[in-house]
């Protein structure tokens, strides 16, 4: 167990926003394409698996995305009610 504490803490995939997931995915892609992971197969496979999961998370968020519209009302933020129809 003390082993994992030395690594940077990874957030659970399903808690990541699109942006967070994409940024981490970018990092993983460049790590896998770089030389650093040459001789660390186990690490590389872990990265690959995490990358796959991040890509799936991004896809899911993209396809499920629905425009969120809120409205400023004084100092408050309230849900937007479309009165134009």
């Amino acid at each position: 167990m003390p082993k994992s504490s030395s690594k940077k803490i990874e957030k659970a995939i399903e808690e990541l926003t699109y942006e967070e997931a994409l940024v981490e995915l970018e990092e993983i892609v460049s790590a896998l394409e770089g030389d650093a992971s040459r001789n660390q197969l186990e690490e590389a496979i872990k990265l690959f698996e995490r990358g796959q999961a991040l890509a799936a998370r991004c896809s899911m968020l993209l396809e499920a995305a629905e425009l969120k519209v809120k409205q400023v009302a004084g100092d408050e933020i309230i849900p937007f009610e479309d009165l134009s129809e």
Partner: protein
Amino acid sequence: MQPTFFSASSAQQWTVSKLTFYIRKLLEENETLQDIWVQGEISNLSRPASGHVYFTLKDSSAALKCVMWKTSAARLGIPLQDGKAVEVHGKIGVYEVSGQYQLYADQIRPVGEGALYQEFMLLKAMLEAEGLFAPERKRPIPIFPQKIGIVTSATGAALRDMLNTLRRRLPLVEVILSPSPVQGIEAPPALVKALQLLNSRSPDIILLARGGGSIEDLWAFNDERVVRAVAMSAVPVICGVGHETDFTLCDFAADLRAPTPTAAAELATQITIIDLRAALQNYKTRILSATLNLLAEQKTALSSLVSQLRYISPDRRIQSERQRVDELARRAHSALYHHIQLQSTHVKGMQRRLEALNPNAVLARGYAVVTRKDDGSVVSHVSQASAEMKVRVSDGEFEVKKK
């Protein structure tokens, strides 16, 4: 009595044509009359099939005939109708056939626009001199916004257009609407307030927008307070007011001008969901091929290690030793077999010789073996004879006593 027509003998004689031509020249050579704006109300509007437009411009005490040729009429920005108050630009001329002076019109605008335009130009010059519109003030628009603020009317078509555009292009985005009236006397302070409220929510971009309308409808976006609020915004502003041809001072003060509200929403979403899908697909491909490459490299490295290992391993010697052992074993086996055969022949010979020495054969010829009863030793000399002895003959033995 002199006839009256002789009494003005000093007066010149004119034909109607000459006079009309003279008057026409007088009017057409007057520079003032050749470039004028005349304000009045349209009446007797007529648009015959020729495409030219005829009307009378009048006010409470006078009337002026006007004609607008087809080519100018085609460029009219506003609809004409009887009773409409307008300002007409053109030059005064004479239609000789009917002796009618009239205004040859080339532009028509609603009343008040001229004054507005003056005001617009003065304010523009002042703010420009202050540097409010300077190109170096323009900030780049973030290419991948998370949060987009909108200042517009909550009920206008502009909002609907922008939301539809954002929904279609980048539904990941969060929209914060700061509603405000966009025309009328209350619009400028409300727009300023809406911009300030939205700034405190720190969106990545603010869209300031309004649908098309007359120049008066758009006038709030030329209000000094609103223009300054746009320039002061901490968040980059894209201004999309009216149509392609409408320019407001807010357009100049904004970081980016969009021709329409829809275009503003498009400019705010330079990266669309289609780009994101493509980028994601690219990452997926790269992550897979990078990993496969890595695995292939590892595999190659591994198999080269294995062959190196095989080269230096004792396995090869063991193999050849094993072969030698096999060979020796085979040779040992055959030597042994040979030996056994020899031995067996030897034994048979011995057996035959032994057969010849069998004492029973001697006994059968009538000889007997005498042994002492006490210790069983063979009596071959007289001195060895004891009191009781055993005599063995060919088919058995019996005891004897010495006399």
